[in-house]
């Protein structure tokens, strides 16, 4: 277990390092980059950038400072020592290049709860639709209900989320105004975007779960349970379900990453003030500090979720040996 976590941490550090280094090199060396001399920044931002990035320092020193956690800034080391640590490894993402007087940390802190709520709701839809659809399909294979669920799942798999979103808004916000067209703030604002975001993954979960359940239901150990006199519903819930959930759980890591990606588009369609919106705005307005900051935050989120998935996997299946996997 400890070796597994250690290895994961190592990979994580490597990934973060790669993201930081690549963007450092790009930002400073490509003509027209954010720090190139011709670029005009707002004076307030300019001051913040100079204070944070020390563009007058030699490159190696800038790099070390950006990476952190050691603060090479004399003020940090010899000053009041309140900010002994600096840079990304000290969880300081620096100032925004567009928004005056706002740091990337602050922008992320504001918007992350919004995106997290959207993502969690989307995951909820994915699981609800997937598990529900898969269950209905697998318990009555070959019936009209099964066929319907499978057709819907194939459709869901082939429609991108922004198209699902457009169609949903047309149907449930414009034609029949049940939900708001866009915006954020109340529960009903959450329904359409999270559904559009989660549904394609729900379609895939339904497929995985149906196949998994059909497979476990035909296993010898399910027959053993019936031979013991276990009631039918308990045979499904206790004996067939856990095995069928294993592929679903290992898909959740991929789904979570996909939901993060999809939120970029969904937040834009529904004008939701989430981290994804900031990222897109940052990328389009060439606010590289913001864009890189959000990339890092999402990297952390994806790593964390994957770790959870692997731990859950090991909890469900005692045959999984995390040490060996690592």
């Amino acid at each position, binding site marked *: 277990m400890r070796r597994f976590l250690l290895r994961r941490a190592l990979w994580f550090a490597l990934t973060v390092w790669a993201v930081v280094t690549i963007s450092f090199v790009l930002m400073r060396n490509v003509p027209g980059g954010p720090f190139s001399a011709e670029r005009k920044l707002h004076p307030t931002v300019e001051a913040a950038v100079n204070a944070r990035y020390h563009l007058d320092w030699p490159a190696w020193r800038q790099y070390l400072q950006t990476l952190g956690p050691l603060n090479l800034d004399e003020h940090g080391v010899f000053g009041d020592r309140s900010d002994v640590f600096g840079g990304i490894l000290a969880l300081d993402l620096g100032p925004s290049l567009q928004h005056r007087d706002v740091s990337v940390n602050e922008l992320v802190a504001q918007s992350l709860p919004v995106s997290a709520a959207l993502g969690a709701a989307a995951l909820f839809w994915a699981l609800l639709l997937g598990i529900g659809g898969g269950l209905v399909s697998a318990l009555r294979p070959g019936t009209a209900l099964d066929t319907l669920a499978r057709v819907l799942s194939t459709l869901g798999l082939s429609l991108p989320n922004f198209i699902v979103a457009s169609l949903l808004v047309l149907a449930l916000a414009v034609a029949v105004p049940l939900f708001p067209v866009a915006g954020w703030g109340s529960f009903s604002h959450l329904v359409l975007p999270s559904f559009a975001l989660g549904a394609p993954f729900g379609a895939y979960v339904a497929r995985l779960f149906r196949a998994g359940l059909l497979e476990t239901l*035909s296993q010898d150990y399910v027959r053993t349970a019936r*031979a013991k*006199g276990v009631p039918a519903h308990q045979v499904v819930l206790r004996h067939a379900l856990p095995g069928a959930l294993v592929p679903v759980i290992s898909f959740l890591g991929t789904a979570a990453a996909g939901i993060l990606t999809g939120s970029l588009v969904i937040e834009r369609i529904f004008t939701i003030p989430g981290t994804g919106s900031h990222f897109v705005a940052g990328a389009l307005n060439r606010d590289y500090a913001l864009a890189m900051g959000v990339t890092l935050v999402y990297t952390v989120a994806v790593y964390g979720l994957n770790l959870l998935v692997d731990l859950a996997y090991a909890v469900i299946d005692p045959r999984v040996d995390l040490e060996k996997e690592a």
Partner: protein
Amino acid sequence: MSLLEVRNLRVGFATARGWAQAVESFSVSVDEGEAVAIVGESGSGKSVSALAIAGLLPRPPARIETGEVLFGGRDLLRMPERELRMLRGRELGFVFQDPSTSLHPLMSVGEQLEEALLVHERLSRAEARARALAALAEVGIAEPDERLAAFPHQLSGGMRQRVMIAMALICRPKLLIADEPTTALDVTVQAQLIELLRKLQRERGMAILIVTHDLALVSGFASRTQVMYAGSVVESGFTSELIAHPAHPYTAALLRSVPALDDALDARFGGIAGTPPDPTQPLPGCAFAPRCAHAVAACRERRPKLSPLALQPSQSGALAISSRRVACGEATRLLSEATSA
């Protein structure tokens, strides 16, 4: 009246290649405390018959066409699923062929053992645990309290099958159906497990219906034996007599194919030449005819019925055959020839 009485069971499967008549005619009776064996080649319908008795066949594709299964006087085939479920595990125990796939891989041994108890008896968890512990000890598992927390993949094959047996017996059923309980295991373990079953059967006065394709293994264990071929019972009688004087050519061939019976000459040939008929294409006459060395023209026209062996009183005295039923038109002639030779 016997504990289990199966009459004219007929089971088929809807397959991609058409209707497969897996069991054409199966009957058996097991008295209380008695051990009965069913033997036959692979694919002869032993498992399907055994599963049909307990209502464990997957339906669809399986369909039970005719027959009755009387257990303690009640017909299991016409019983509501709820009641049948209450019988399964409590009065009717089942042990399957492959312990590595028949135990739940994600549940601990203890959980699986206790489940049967919790379903059928009002027990506290602690009581269930104590019973599970005792059950493991009874089937000869060392350090049972440690094994309770173990998962199936942490046990050896023989140990897994002991767990299966403990699980089937934990509610003290009147009848245990064991479908090839030792086939997946190696030879020394096979003998140990059969010995264990015999011991438990004697101690508890429990009836056992044991399915196998190895007559030698059960010869000292089951008092009576039924031989199956292509979905039908072709011969039945007392095990020792059956081994000494097989009447059906298929039984004789089956016995010759088992090397352990010291028939050194024929043992060289291993299995029986030829293959059983395709269950989707039943033959009009005797199903064994294409492989039978004694077949005559009549064999291919009419299917022989399972009927008592018609021997002269002097013959049956000499052969010590008491109660034997055979489905072969030539059986009497063949036996007479064998004794006169």
